[in-house]
């Protein structure tokens, strides 16, 4: 009889119990909202990080768009110096090539590290420029004959850089348009 008198159905609970249940529900909703907010913040931070990275890449690409034509200009000046057999001017242009190519190499490695062949060809031109400079110091033969290989290497690297620049600038433009 006592048992029957004290037993209740689940919905026959006091207002205190209801308060507890509502409290738990509110706590769960609060937890969910906090989690969603934290997730959004993390996504925003990731998006901001990605945006900064993209901007850095674009800045480097813009710098390369300025520097690569300068490299082309050095190659042309080198040609002129070779054709006039001006050994000291050739050496100066080879020095300029080495330093400018070194700068471009660093940026290119950062913007597009997958360009192993292009990086290797650029490095080869730098190494050959060093070798040709030393040979010119010794003044063994004609300027033209002492610069044939470095000249060919510079043409290859320069052409590859221009092709890469064309592709990359088009892709960057597509990225901005889309």
């Amino acid at each position, binding site marked *: 009889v006592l048992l029957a008198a004290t037993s209740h159905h689940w919905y026959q609970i006091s207002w205190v119990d209801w308060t507890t249940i509502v409290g738990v529900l509110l706590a769960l909703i609060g937890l969910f909202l906090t989690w969603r907010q934290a997730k959004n913040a993390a996504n925003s931070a990731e998006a901001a990080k990605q945006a900064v990275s993209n901007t850095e890449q674009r800045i480097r690409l813009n710098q390369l768009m300025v520097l690569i034509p300068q490299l082309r200009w050095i190659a042309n000046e080198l040609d002129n110096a070779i054709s006039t057999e001006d050994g000291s001017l050739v050496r100066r242009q080879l020095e300029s090539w080495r330093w400018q190519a*070194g700068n471009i190499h660093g940026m290119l490695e950062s913007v597009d590290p997958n360009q192993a062949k292009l990086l290797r060809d650029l490095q*080869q031109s730098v190494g050959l420029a060093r070798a*040709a400079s030393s040979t010119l110091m010794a003044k063994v033969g004609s300027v033209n004959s002492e610069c044939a290989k470095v000249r060919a290497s510079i043409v290859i690297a320069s052409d590859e850089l221009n092709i890469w620049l064309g592709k990359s600038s088009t892709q960057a433009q597509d990225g901005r348009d889309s």
Partner: protein
Amino acid sequence: MDFEPQDQVMIDLASDLLKQTEEEKVSWSPTDDADQYIFSATSSSVLIKSTVDHDGDRHVDLSLVNRNGSEVASLGTQFNREEPGGPWTGGPNNKLLGRLYLAARNSALSVSDTLKDIYNAIGIEKTNGQS
């Protein structure tokens, strides 16, 4: 400043380059100096040069250069005298550098292939220098 570690690094590099060149895993290229050869990676190059001094002794210099073409380390053949006025004797790395220079030259100028081709043309088959 202690220069010993750099020497050891270059000796190790020379040994490894020799091994890889002989196994045709590394390809050298000629430079505008007929006695100098180059091998380039993506951010560095190695140059090996041979010169003959006024006494007729052959010197070989191995240089490691960075992406600007600046030399960051080098190793060269050495000739020492044990006593003043005594005879010159070759340093411990001379043989290694000499072998590397010949291997680099062989790779850059395709010497083995050229010899093989000419022997084929005259009807003699050569394998590893033996007929």
